[in-house]
């Protein structure tokens, strides 16, 4: 099944507050095992079965504006 959406998270900017993880209806966000340079376990997308529709709930809640949300749509392209 095709990807409908995904998010990029600026892992260095992230402070690991977890508000995005808490807000994600698809539960496809989690804390990374890694520390970033600030010493935080940053948030990362783990979406093996492409659940993320790009609803942007995570973006709405992120206090540090770390998240960029993408939506992927199929469109007829003129050739």
């Amino acid at each position, binding site marked *: 099944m095709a*990807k409908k959406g995904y998010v990029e998270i600026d892992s260095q900017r992230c402070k690991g507050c*977890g*508000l995005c993880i*808490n807000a994600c209806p698809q539960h496809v966000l989690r804390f990374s095992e890694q520390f970033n340079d600030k010493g935080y376990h940053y948030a990362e997308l783990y979406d093996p079965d492409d659940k993320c529709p790009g609803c942007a709930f995570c973006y709405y809640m992120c206090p540090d*504006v770390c998240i960029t949300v993408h939506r992927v749509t199929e469109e007829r392209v003129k050739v």
Partner: protein
Amino acid sequence: MANVDKIVAQMPKSLSGKEFSYCPGCHHGIVHRLIAEVIDELGIAGKTLMVAPVGCSVFAYEFFDLDGTVAAHGRAPAVATGMKRALPDRIVFTYQGDGDLASIGAAEIVHAANRGENITTIFINNAVYGMTGGQMAPTTLIGQKTTTSPYGRNAKDNGYPIKMSEMLSTLDGSAYIERVMVTTPQNVLKAKSAIKKAFEVQIKGLGFSMIEVLSTCPTNWGMTPIESMKWLEENMAKAFPLGVFVDKSKGVI
């Protein structure tokens, strides 16, 4: 057929991109983003002046890609008045905490509102003095422990959590006043449209507009960001009911 990848949400243009100085999970950041989104959508970035307060958001003027300054503690409404009187066709907004606006700055906000000063104020009520280490604010809840109410705020000695939105809405100069919170994606969107409304009221020249945002201070509340939001919803939102207190834009906007 081809897959098209669209970015639907990202860092707003009106933010400078500088990393916020706030603690993890602090709502200041969410509100910053909402203001920037609104300014982008209204296309007013080029003519907007920002007045930051003294408080954790003292650095806010750095975080926006706007002309801006920092007012003395509590005096942002006076500074904004000076700017607006000098340049009436610019958009001027202040960003203030509850210690800044409700305590030391009480006279300035009351008179800015009463004059119907055509500015917008974003008021971050987190029931505490964040910047200075969690002292009691006039908005601190009864029983709430802070570094200057170590036994919990009691009405007899310290009075009551002050409801600025309710108080200011008794003044004839207030055009739009609403209280919101940003604890869920849903009410984040509500908060955004409130902020947009406030700026539109200024653009229309209807008078003073203020949005009070109930916000968390995980650090000084001594809770995790998630716990803080729960505490806010269960306690603060009861003491400070959400809603629109004045709306003179009816019919106009």
